[in-house]
């Protein structure tokens, strides 16, 4: 239409190359998890499932996985609550400083993770430790929730703006109380956006390592931390590779689901 055939072919060729660039490393991980060579000599000389068996039995992996799931769920719940509250305030009210809120919410993810990490680390040391709360799962959850708020906020805000106010007004004109309006009108309208935000928040938390490093203390270890700690030990390489392959496969799920739930609303946003 607007592009000549030559331009289209050029764009298509480039896009194919870029997508190959994006996917080849991930595919190599998947293939290498069945590579019998401990140093992943390429091309693989055979096929083995030994590493998968060893990874499943690995105590460190299992503990770290459990910690990551707990941290992810905690961060998800807090950010779901806080993120949707801010989104409601911004979408439905006029107030001083409304424009600044988006900036405030995005700041924890826009600033480099190491900055958020150090800032929270020194703040926890001075405020929480005197209260008897030491570094551990709680501090990790606080840190993760801080940067997860933005994904819930973005999803819920976009939905609230699209749904509009008229149905809620109709509901209260017809005699429904605030709670009834929320329960029967607002909530069904934003349910899928909440779910999409929650999934993305969980995924974001599950993957995070930098803020985690500074907020976890010595006692606990999330899965990314376990991977990083074992990365430079040649003996552990095949097991790390299996964990990595599993994570690649697992991550496809929440992204696909959240895309379905938000009908592409989140596509342009992080």
């Amino acid at each position, binding site marked *: *239409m*607007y*592009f*000549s055939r030559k331009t*289209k072919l*050029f*764009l298509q060729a*480039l*896009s194919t190359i*870029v997508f190959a*660039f*994006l996917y*080849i490393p*991930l595919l*190599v*991980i998947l293939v290498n998890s069945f590579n019998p060579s401990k*140093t*992943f000599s*390429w091309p693989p000389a055979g096929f083995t499932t030994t590493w998968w068996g060893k990874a499943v039995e690995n105590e460190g992996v299992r503990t770290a996985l459990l910690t990551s799931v707990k941290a992810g769920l905690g961060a998800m719940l807090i950010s779901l609550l806080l993120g949707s*509250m*801010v989104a*409601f305030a911004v979408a439905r*009210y006029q107030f001083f400083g409304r424009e600044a809120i988006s900036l*405030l919410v*995005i*700041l*924890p993810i*826009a*600033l*480099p993770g*190491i*900055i958020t990490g*150090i*800032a*929270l*680390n*020194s*703040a926890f040391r001075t405020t929480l430790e005197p209260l008897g709360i030491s570094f551990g799962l709680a501090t990790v959850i606080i840190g993760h*929730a*801080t940067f997860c*708020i933005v994904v819930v906020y973005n999803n819920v805000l976009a939905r609230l703006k699209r749904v509009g106010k008229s149905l809620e007004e109709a509901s209260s004109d017809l*005699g*429904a109380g605030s709670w*009834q309006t929320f329960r029967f009108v607002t909530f069904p309208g934003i349910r899928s956006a909440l779910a999409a935000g929650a999934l993305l928040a969980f995924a974001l938390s*599950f993957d995070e*390592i*930098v803020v985690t490093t*500074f907020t976890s203390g010595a006692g606990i270890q999330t899965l990314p931390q376990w*991977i*990083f700690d074992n990365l430079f030990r040649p003996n552990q390489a095949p097991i*790390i590779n299996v964990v*990595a392959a599993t994570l*690649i496969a697992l*991550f496809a799920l929440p*992204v*696909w689901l959240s895309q379905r739930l938000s009908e*592409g609303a989140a*596509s*342009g946003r*992080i």
Partner: protein
Amino acid sequence: MRANLAPQNELRASSWLHRHEKSRLAILLSAPLFWLIVAYLGSLFSMFISAFWSVDSFTGSLVKTFTWENFQTLITADVYRRIALRSISVALMVTIIDALLALPIALFMAKVLSPRKRQLLVVLLLLPLWASYLVKAYAWRTLFANGGVLDWLLNPFGLGTPGYGLAATTIVLCYLWLPYMILPIYAGLERLPNSLLEASSDLGAGGGRTFRSIVLPLVYPSLIAGSIFTFSLSLGDYITVKIVGGKTQLFANVIYDNVGTAGNLPFAAAAAMVPVITVLGYLFLVRRSGALENL
């Protein structure tokens, strides 16, 4: 019908809430703002303050008296200036390469493909974006290894893996942040009306001319929005360079090492100001482009 009406006391509460809009707003905003302003901005501020403290070199304890010492060391020591310059050039390089890769692919997705295929490609882009950061960096470590996939691919051409170093770090950072560049540009292009492109080609412009005179100026804010991500993320990264950088040091490593092994938190806080100020400076430079509304 009566059963569907709200009970009396709930009605009273909700009509009170209805009349007091300010209270509703206060209830909604109190907890999130406490979290973000008191806890988060408060932490950032206290870190900023601690950048002016020092550490007693004998006891290793914090000395909470004001000093410019950390900043003086940062500015005068040759090694820090070199590392800072290296980090900023890597971040700029990553941003430019990603922009060059992202523009054609976003254009292809938004303006050439059918809507159904377009959705599929968006999902295909989001998948690697959400796949674990660490896993992706690790994947490249195995690609770059001696006797790894890159060697196998390039050896027939007389080339080989560049090995772990600055080049590998730049490539991996480009890889990691590419979707962050493609997605905003794609969203910007989707908003660009097709009629403009049709008008341009009706008036006799070729693909290249349309791209330069129509697409590029209109998609510029989205491009800048993407560059904020690629620039800031590259500047704050210390993990990738540890995984594929060999002995290379970037500025975030200086911060990290001072928190960890050196245990000099005030110096780390002062060093952390360098990326913060650089990113804020970048945001200030691009604020007029309208990019901040495109984040």
